[in-house]
């Protein structure tokens, strides 16, 4: 009877494997209380990479991928800087101007390759790879955590999951501006995924708000359809990679509105107009001198708009770790390094990886790298803790 109950609660292991395995005392106890060795929260490159490594270390990790599995790369059409990420040129759709091609010469034939891999494709591959090595993935949002103590608790609504270690890879989410009209027109002209929604703006006028890589990529994606794209940036220089800045400058459909901020989005049923505020004179030059205001001439102007794409930046998803984990001023998780590894947070057995820690690099590959480190750190922590097993019994 107990065994059938166990089988019911056993999410972690296929029945055949469970029955073939010798059920020793520790194994039995673990199943009874369903204590996972590792729970991973997040499903971007950091979360899935942690899943792959932890799976291969036979930790049978449980991954909460959230309601939007795959993280930010799901909104990117082509990731050009993932090393080794290439595929053969397939369809005519691939042959757009900003895709880099490469001809590979093999002895018997030449092959045209697209340099880059689709964001969703890359993330689906990572997910399948993690599952292949034994990670269990649940597409639900975590609602609460209790991380202090030897056994960590992760809640999804009323369900509770327990684990000896937790890796936090919740990443970052797009920042909304909070200007009037932004919420009202979401999905009706206001959007956050240019790659998804660009085709709806055929021969229309779109505004992209922001000045980083995301904004620049969005602006370029929109030019394939829109007749005009305004890039609205509050400073007088872009913070994007050189190659992307060059593509923006070279694109005749994109006009950059420097030193300009979005103040309001107006319309009836959908977006019709934006209110912008431009500061004449360099805001950049004046930002370190708050005492000097006179050089700044501020001017409001309205412009006709069909779409507004928000790409002002991201903030770490750490709301429900507040009060438990040490966070820095901007809300990023602080990692300690030290004996148990670089991804160790302020709580023993809790590790963090990816954009939720990293305000500096924020790349898919740096996120994946720290996800790998976190899994190795968790594995090491678990092996050191083996002697303490008795205290988990009750």
């Amino acid at each position: 009877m107990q065994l059938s109950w166990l089988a019911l609660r056993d999410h972690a292991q296929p029945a055949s494997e469970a029955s073939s395995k010798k059920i020793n005392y520790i194994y039995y106890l673990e199943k009874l209380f369903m204590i996972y060795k590792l729970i991973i929260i997040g499903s971007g490159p950091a979360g899935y990479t942690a899943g792959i490594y932890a799976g291969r270390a036979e930790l049978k990790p449980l991954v909460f991928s959230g309601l939007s599995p795959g993280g930010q790369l799901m909104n990117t059409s082509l990731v050009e800087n993932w090393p080794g990420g290439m595929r053969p040129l397939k369809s005519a759709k691939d042959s757009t101007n900003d895709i880099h091609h490469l001809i590979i010469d093999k002895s018997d034939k030449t092959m045209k390759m697209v340099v880059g891999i689709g964001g969703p494709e890359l993330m689906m591959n990572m997910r399948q790879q993690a599952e292949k090595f034994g990670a269990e993935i649940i597409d639900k949002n975590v609602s609460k955590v209790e991380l202090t103590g030897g056994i960590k608790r992760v809640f999804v609504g009323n369900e509770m999951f327990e684990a000896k270690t937790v890796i936090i890879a919740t990443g970052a989410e797009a920042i909304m501006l909070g200007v009037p009209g932004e919420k009202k027109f979401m999905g009706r002209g206001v959007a956050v995924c240019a790659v998804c929604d660009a085709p709806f703006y055929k021969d229309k006028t779109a505004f992209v708000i922001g000045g980083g890589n995301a904004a620049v990529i969005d602006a370029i994606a929109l030019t394939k359809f829109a007749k005009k794209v305004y890039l609205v940036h509050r400073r007088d220089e872009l913070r994007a990679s050189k190659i992307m800045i060059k593509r923006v400058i070279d694109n005749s459909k994109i006009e950059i509105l420097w030193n300009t901020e979005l103040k309001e989005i107006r319309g009836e049923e959908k977006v019709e107009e934006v209110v912008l505020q431009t500061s004449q004179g360099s805001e950049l030059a004046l930002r370190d001198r708050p005492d000097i205001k006179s050089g700044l001439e501020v001017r409001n102007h309205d412009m006709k708009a069909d779409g507004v794409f928000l790409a002002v930046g991201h903030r770490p998803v750490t709301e429900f770790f507040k009060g438990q984990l040490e966070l820095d001023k901007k809300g990023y998780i602080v990692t300690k390094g030290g004996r148990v590894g670089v991804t160790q947070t302020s709580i023993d057995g809790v590790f963090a990886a990816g954009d939720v820690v990293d305000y500096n690099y924020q790349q898919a590959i740096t996120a994946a790298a720290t996800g790998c480190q976190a899994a190795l750190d968790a594995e090491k922590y678990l092996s050191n803790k083996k002697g303490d097993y008795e205290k988990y019994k009750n």
Partner: protein
Amino acid sequence: MAVQFTDQDFEEKVLKSDKPVMVDFSAEWCGPCKMAGPIIDELAEEYKDKMVIGKMDVDGNKTIAGKYGVMSIPTVILFKGGEEVERMSGFVGKEGYENLIKKVLGE
């Protein structure tokens, strides 16, 4: 599997349907739509007695998407008696879609 609606059969299959209908506006090139696809298929199977659940490729069927002001995908619109009753943009996970279906079914 979810049915595929087109501009041509939309009136017949959606507006004139006896049961409520959920239409998932999506496209091949949209990442979040790819995540939604298999979930929409599952829900179509699970609710096949109570609701018609189908997909509409906005690439080939611009008229209906335009008529209903779909400017962001994935967007689901739920119809009852030929009228739009609910709408949601963005990928919201199985629970999110299910909540919307239950709301329309009054469950």
